[in-house]
């Protein structure tokens, strides 16, 4: 058992990465994630790793591309505008099938937007983001403890699938402090990377590449990537459900929104509304099975809560496939949804059936 430490979300994520064996970090200053590079700039050298403050987010992600190709567990972090700049590199990393972890402490957009929490990068994170037909594994913590646990898991999943993994959090989780415990132990021996560019030493050259000029070869590569994403959909779905046994209406929310939605659910239940909740933890793969089960159990009403104008709600509609009414409620621009607003939405939903 470890001890509980009170930590800021950004620093907790950085420490978790170090403990997971991350030995290379490159980043660029942007609010609200600056504590990650700041923490890494002192901690990384204590463990014999390398920290670089890159000249841009573009360079930072390309340093990750190189470090990952050379076999290191590595990570970069940023916030929305900076993550947009990284998309080119992320596409190359996905195309070359290299493992790495990318943290996005989301802030409001578009453009320069603001520096307050938002969930407006859901599409970018889950539908590819950069050019080409690829997916990231996307994990969305709803507490700092979960951010710590998912960051550690992210390194294992990245190695397992040779794929970038994104931690999609927001300014609230980055800036808030909560007690955390570092429960994850990095494996004594990290997975072998026989594909890494480490110098030939008695073997033929290793080549890290995403270029396939022959259409049939690129098609083969694309289909192999598709199979990998299908395997993720099969094996890496993560979610949490509450009170689905008796629920008539289900709130759907991830990350910071889910914490507010949970409070709303609890108050609404105390007032007699039969409310349940589905909280996606993996955003790609999206937890479609949770919705299948809910629909099969007779639930016909879903209320999606997001800090966006409605992005994940499209996946909720796909997952329920026309068999349920799906409504949306969101606050945007750095404004958080409020408990009683959510309850008011739930009431509209149930047609004032209770209370």
């Amino acid at each position, binding site marked *: 058992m470890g001890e509980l430490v009170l930590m800021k979300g950004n620093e907790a994520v950085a420490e978790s990465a170090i403990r997971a064996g991350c030995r290379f970090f490159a980043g660029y200053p942007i609010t609200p994630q600056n504590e990650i590079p700041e923490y890494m700039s002192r901690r990384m050298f204590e463990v014999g790793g*390398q920290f670089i403050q890159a000249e841009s987010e573009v*360079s930072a992600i*390309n340093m990750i591309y*190189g470090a990952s190709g*050379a076999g290191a567990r*590595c990570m970069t972090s940023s916030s929305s505008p900076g993550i947009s700049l990284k998309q080119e590199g992320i596409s190359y990393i996905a195309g070359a099938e290299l493992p790495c972890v990318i943290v996005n402490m989301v802030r409001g957009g578009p453009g320069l937007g603001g520096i307050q929490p938002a969930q407006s990068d859901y599409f970018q994170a889950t539908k590819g983001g950069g050019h080409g037909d690829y997916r990231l594994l996307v994990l969305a913590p709803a507490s700092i403890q979960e951010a710590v646990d998912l960051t550690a898991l992210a390194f294992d999943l990245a190695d397992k699938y040779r794929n970038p993994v994104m931690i999609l959090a927001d300014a609230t989780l980055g800036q808030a402090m909560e007690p955390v415990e570092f429960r994850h132990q990095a494996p004594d021996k990290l997975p072998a990377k026989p594909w890494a*560019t480490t110098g030939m030493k008695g073997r033929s*050259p290793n080549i890290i590449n995403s*270029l396939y000029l022959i259409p049939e070869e690129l098609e083969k590569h694309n289909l192999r990537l598709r199979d990998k994403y299908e395997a993720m959909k099969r094996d890496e779905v993560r979610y949490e459900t509450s009170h689905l046994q008796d629920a008539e209406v289900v709130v759907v929310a991830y990350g910071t929104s889910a914490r507010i939605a949970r409070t709303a659910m609890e108050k609404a239940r105390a007032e007699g509304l039969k409310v349940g909740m589905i909280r996606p933890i993996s955003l790609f793969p999206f937890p479609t099975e949770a919705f299948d089960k809910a629909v099969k159990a007779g639930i016909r009403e879903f209320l999606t809560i997001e800090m966006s104008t409605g992005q994940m709600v499209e996946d909720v509609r796909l997952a329920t496939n026309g068999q349920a009414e799906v409504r949306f409620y969101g606050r945007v621009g750095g404004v958080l949804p409020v408990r009683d607003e959510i309850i008011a939405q739930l009431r509209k939903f149930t047609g004032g059936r209770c209370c």
Partner: protein
Amino acid sequence: MQVIAKRPMALTDVPTHYCPGCTHGIIHRLVAEAIDELGLNEKTIGVAPVGCAVLAYKYFNVDMHEASHGRAPAVATGIKRVLPENIVFTYQGDGDLASIGTAEIVHAAARGENITVIFVNNAIYGMTGGQMAPTTLIGQRTTTSPDGRMVERAGYPVRVSEMLSTLDGAAYIARVAVTDPANVNKAKKAVLKAFRTQVERKGFALVELLSTCPTNWGLSPREAIDWLKESMMAYYPLGVFKDTTGEGETK
């Protein structure tokens, strides 16, 4: 029978895609000879660019990493920081290094990254069909400067070696040409020195090699060599612009 010339071990035995008369082949050979002569074959990682040398990963018989356009110095930085005992080089053209990748090359040099950069300057975008490059000379016709590069429209060509030599992090910066045996021999020495600078952990090293593009210049290979000597060398003088390795040769 005595073998007096053979393919360096650091080159693979495949035909290249380069156009007839293009000097990329000579430059590939110089890099490979340097790797062979310093015995670096099993510890070298090359970073290929986007541009004419995009397929360099097929030609160098060492571990290779294909970068995105202009980002090779950032990729090389990541590799070298993770594997400081290995030898890391980038091979980049003038569009890649002097246009889209200016931030990456400037900051790799400023940080004094202990890498070797092979910079091939042929004053044009070759792979995409002959567009104007940041290194295209004033008056030079390209597909995007059809009346010749005009200052009022496109400004001035960039002298990369001179610019980078102002940075304290740069240890060795030289410009050479591969126009004739005498210049090829000088180029060979510069490339060798740029690798040795890294082996001896003396910092960032870059060799700019003036190179021909007969296809997109619209010249025969011979005319291209002459044009390089007359026009390019006038704007891009050969020489050593920076040498802090303690071995002299500073201009």
